């Protein structure tokens, strides 16, 4: 029942998604009839961050109507100071505001002549569409979880059976606790459980929000995954003990030359682990979006050959895109699980290698 509903829901969501994508892809590809449709540029444009939510564009050139939701731009420049204004001031890259110009998705400082000014450095703290969407997703997450906590506090789910949303969220929490935290961290799991739960739901909710039509690709952004990876590294290092460091600097149970050989390898391993986490999440989510966009782009590539080919290929393209979209829903959960589980594994390596120690000394 639930599965069926989820399926029809995702199908409905996907149809909307397709609609917005196809409209904007067409708008992007249609600029100037002479230009060829560049699928690579269109796709990268869609998975990149932006200073506005862009839904579709009607018309061409200066008369074009852009259906967008402008977002606040916050710039700090050591030379020019703080600057806060709405992204609509840029008129989609056509206007210069306060000495800043939008080039592609980047804001660059310009001089009076309108050329890029290399002498001015600028730090962009804008509430871009990724930031805004992330805040929205997190607000929803905090609201869901605190309302659930309120229910539990009132006794529902403790002395009586859990109801409604509790039945959906509780198994996930139990899963993180019983299948991620407990088997990896053993008796010390309670100390890390809040972090692991937050990590899991933080990734999951942003993955899911990223799948909504017209939404930003938050978890497929390297900055987002870098933050999570670095936090994981900090947690791993903060919880590490002497066994962990002894293992790295003086690998036990091997001859001295090998110990020396192992030192750089092990030391590098400390950083490659979170780096792998960063790249894995980023690549998986971005790849998913790119595949869906590729299937949609195929329609326009075929349409550039002949209109008939474009129309004929549309159902095939949509069928594949729907298939990938459903897989992406699965991937949203799987990647959240993998990131959390591997973090737990790395923490467990850091907090104790007691089994290993026993093996060596006996």
């Amino acid at each position, binding site marked *: 029942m639930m599965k069926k509903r989820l399926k029809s829901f995702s199908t409905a969501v996907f149809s909307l998604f397709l609609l917005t994508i196809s409209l904007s892809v067409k708008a992007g590809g249609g600029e100037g009839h002479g230009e060829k449709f560049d699928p690579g540029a269109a796709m990268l444009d869609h998975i990149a961050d932006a200073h506005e939510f862009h839904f579709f564009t009607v018309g061409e050139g200066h008369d074009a109507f852009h259906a967008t939701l402008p977002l606040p731009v916050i710039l700090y420049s050591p030379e020019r100071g703080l600057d806060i204004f709405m992204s609509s001031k840029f008129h989609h890259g056509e206007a210069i505001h306060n000495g800043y110009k939008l080039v592609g998705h980047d804001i660059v400082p310009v001089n009076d002549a309108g050329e890029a000014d290399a002498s001015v450095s600028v730090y962009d*703290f804008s509430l871009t569409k990724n930031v805004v969407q*992330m805040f929205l997703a997190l607000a929803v997450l905090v609201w869901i979880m*605190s309302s659930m906590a309120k229910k539990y*506090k009132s006794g529902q789910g403790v*002395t009586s059976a859990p109801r409604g949303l509790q039945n959906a969220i509780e198994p996930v929490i139990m899963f993180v606790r019983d299948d991620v935290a407990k088997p990896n961290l053993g008796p010390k799991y309670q100390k890390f459980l809040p*972090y692991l*739960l937050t990590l899991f739901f933080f990734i999951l909710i942003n993955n899911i929000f990223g799948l909504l039509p017209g939404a930003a690709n938050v978890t497929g952004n*390297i900055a987002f995954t*870098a933050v999570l990876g670095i936090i994981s590294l900090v947690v791993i290092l903060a919880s590490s003990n002497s066994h962990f460091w002894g293992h790295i600097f003086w690998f036990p149970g091997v001859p001295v030359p090998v110990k020396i050989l192992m030192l750089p390898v092990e030391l590098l391993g400390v950083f490659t682990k979170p780096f792998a986490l960063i790249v894995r999440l980023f690549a998986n989510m971005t790849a998913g979006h790119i595949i869906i966009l590729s299937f949609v782009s195929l329609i326009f590539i075929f349409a550039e050959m002949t209109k008939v080919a474009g129309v004929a290929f549309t159902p095939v393209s949509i069928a594949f895109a729907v298939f990938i979209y459903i897989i992406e829903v699965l991937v949203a959960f799987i990647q959240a699980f993998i990131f959390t589980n591997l973090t737990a594994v790395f923490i467990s390596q850091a907090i104790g290698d007691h089994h290993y120690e026993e093996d060596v000394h006996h």
Partner: protein
Amino acid sequence: MSLLTPHLGFFVWTLVAFVIVLLLLKKFAWKPIIKSLNERESNIANSIATAERVKQEMAQMQSENEALLARAREERGQLLKEARDTKDKIINEAKEQAKVEANKIIAEAQVAINSQKMAALTDVKNQVGKLVIEVSEKVLRQELASKEAQEAHIKSLVDEVRMN
């Protein structure tokens, strides 16, 4: 904002957001939820343990009851047997006593009969003696009315005494 270069602004916002969300959820969500789940689990575990204990107690009580019942039945049988024995004993004793009493009464009655018979016989003897004396007196009075008769009689009597 190229695909592979992290964007500073988004990086900072994500960091801030993660830390705030972690603190918020830790305080307002995970703590109460995990506490409630643990509470519920221990409740369930306790309930199961209690149910198991009660079941065992029930089984024990049942076996105890059965043992008790068996013992009660045995006691009842014993009591009945004892009662029967006692009854028989009482009856036998009563019979014995009755026999003894009866014998005693019969013996007494015989003694009484004998003594009364003896008394009656004595009485009859006395009566007969008296009657004999009276009759004899009367006869003698008749016979010894004359002087010669008296003397003759005395003489015979004296003869008789001499013979003895």
